[in-house]
């Protein structure tokens, strides 16, 4: 995806978005102070678990177990992080998470975009029926299919392979629906012009429709990526080999010979949290837009 085009597009949005509406509070001092206090209280509540985790992760197991946890008692140490990284599990799972989420995103976006365009512009027989089935499938929670899907994977001899983790995740009727609605809104005249110039349907799609759809495609991609990155149930069910597990599955499943160690537990949790938090800090606006446009089914 070309980053510049999307950025330009985002910039064109009215600046009001970031500023909020001062009208809501009026200019009275009291409401402003009340609102400010409420916000700070909420933000502190929401950040506290992170802070507690960070403090725990930089202490030694002995200090946590003997003195009880207090940020001021224990000595600062990065031992927990060092041990986690030395063991290497978290690195393997992070790699798997990246590989799997990236492939899921790539395939889902490709498949869904093509299908949405086909549904939007196609004239083939059964188009309406197939579209209806697709839309109805939005109601089917994938979690309900884990039992037959596992059965299917044993049949295909695919349990404990990347393919088994990835493929069932690329079916995204909701995304097809969102993209189709977007394509419906693109004036057909633009494509006609290209067709008159002799471009094939694929070429029309690629050089006329896709460029116009970059923001929505980016939004779908981000949404799918976050979903795949955080998906737990299916990868948990279909992987038993620790070397194939994703971050959430590995962390939840594989244990350590020494039993529960809180500093290490928090250190690995924070390491696992880091990638998406960093990505969010870098692409905050685009991620926010993505949730806003795709979260309610594109409305």
């Amino acid at each position, binding site marked *: 995806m070309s980053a510049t085009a999307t950025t330009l597009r985002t910039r064109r949005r009215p600046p009001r978005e970031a500023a909020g509406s001062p009208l809501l509070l009026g200019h009275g001092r009291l409401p402003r102070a009340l609102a400010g206090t409420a916000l700070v209280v909420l933000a502190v509540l929401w950040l506290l678990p992170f802070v507690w985790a960070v403090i725990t992760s930089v202490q030694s197991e002995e200090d946590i177990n003997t003195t009880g946890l207090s940020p001021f008692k224990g000595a600062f140490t990065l031992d927990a992080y060092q041990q986690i990284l030395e063991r290497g599990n978290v690195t393997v799972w992070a790699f798997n998470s990246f590989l799997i989420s990236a492939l899921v995103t790539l395939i889902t976006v490709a498949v869904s975009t093509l299908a949405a365009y086909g549904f939007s512009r196609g004239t083939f027989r059964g188009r309406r029926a197939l579209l209806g089935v697709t839309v109805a499938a939005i109601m089917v929670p994938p979690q309900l299919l884990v039992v037959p899907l596992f059965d299917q994977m044993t049949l295909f001899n695919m349990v404990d392979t990347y*393919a088994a983790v990835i493929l069932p995740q690329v079916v995204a009727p909701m995304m097809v629906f969102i993209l189709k609605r977007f394509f419906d809104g693109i004036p057909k005249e633009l494509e006609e012009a290209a067709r008159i110039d002799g471009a094939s349907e694929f070429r029309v799609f690629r050089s006329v429709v896709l460029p116009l759809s970059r923001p929505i495609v980016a939004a779908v991609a981000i949404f799918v990526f976050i979903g795949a990155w955080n998906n737990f149930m299916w990868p948990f069910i279909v992987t038993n080999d620790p070397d194939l597990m994703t971050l959430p599955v590995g962390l939840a499943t594989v*244990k350590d010979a020494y039993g529960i160690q809180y500093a290490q537990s928090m250190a690995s949790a924070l390491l696992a949290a880091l990638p998406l938090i960093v990505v969010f800090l870098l692409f905050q606006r685009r991620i926010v837009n993505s949730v806003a446009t795709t979260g309610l089914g594109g409305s």
Partner: protein
Amino acid sequence: MSSRLPAQGVPAVSDPVRRPSRRRLLRHAMAGAGALIAAGPLSGCASPASASGASALSVWDLFQGGDGMLMDDMIEAVSKGAGGAEGFEVDRTILDWGPSYYTKLAMSAAGGRASDVAAMHLSRLAGYAPGGLVDAFDLDLLAEYGVTEKDFTPAVWSRTRHEGTVYAIPLDVHPFIVFYDKKAAEKAGLLDTSGELAPMGSPEALLDAGRALAEATGEAGILFGHVTDTAQNWRLFAGLYAQTGAEFDLPDGGPPKIDVDAAVRAVTLMTRLFDGKTNPNNLDYNGALAAFSSGRGGMAMLGEWELPTLKKSGMELGAAPFPQVFEKPAVYTDSHSFVLPHQNSPDPARRREAHRYVAQILKQSLTWASAGHIPAYQPVLAEPEYAALDPQSSYADAAKVAVLDPPNWFAGAGSNFQNRMCQPLQSALLGNTTPEKAVRQMVREADTLLRQPNPVA
């Protein structure tokens, strides 16, 4: 790998228990991505695991804490080639004890790409062998590596088979025993001339012992943690019930064969013993453990695996097989054993290595015994080093009268069956129901489970 890891800068060879390395990570990534891209989805079955024939032997277990570290030591020893044998490259995976472990084990076997060797409680074998989720051992191959049937006691060996074929090789026997504070027991007059716990022989003797111990400590007599625990009540009950000589049989389709009178005798003794006065009736597992460690009781009914924890308390610790109080000697036990999880296309060379690995680990049983477990491999018991282990050697005889869970697909360590048996027993101990009602509910629960279609037959 924290405290006992050698200092930094030591070559990687010193850590033969392999964690996934970056090299392996890349190999898997390539294999996975390659399978996806090059050959399309269906041939994704060219698995990373089988693509690498010469990779490390993968072993699964559920040992954490003391047991976990000892297993690390044993794996390290065989990896380096203990006793002049060839070494191994071992990739160890530890999963959570209980249902999570057994679920994953079954799923990996059903998927066909399971680990090469896995640990299993012998009481669970009936849920795995009949359904083809574990593969059979080749006894000739094991004999080649110095392990044969006569190295095990018949009580344990008989449970390794399904329809005459051996599916499990036991590593240990771990009975439910009594630990006692030697000073308190001496004061209470419970020791024999050699300073060991004297036989009891009757329920009254056990009740008297509780009172005497309570007097000796000035606090509780006998401690037992069971509240919200999913196994403790069953362990205590099953041992006492077996001592009555009655049978506990779980035939598919039901009804369960349970001698209600014998069961009521056992539960009644439990409620009389843990009456909430002499001996507390409302402790949870860790509460009882902590109370005993800190001297707030003279005796505790626990699994022998708590030995390392209790040794740290500094008390003069004694241990004995669970005392015989009814007609027949019996001690509730289980056994950690090794199985070969089912693989769709096992590589013969790897299978051979798996046999050799199991044989080699058994020969490290003395290390395992330091956690309190009684080695199943009898040659180790005969060694003078074992006799010197105190108090392990005092309860080694428990293995001879071992009673395991009734063999049924849904029973065994960490099973739903044990959990469901524990609920009515807990109510009885807490005084919320009578022994008769508790037993009736146990029979009902067992019947419900037996009425389910058996998914492994």
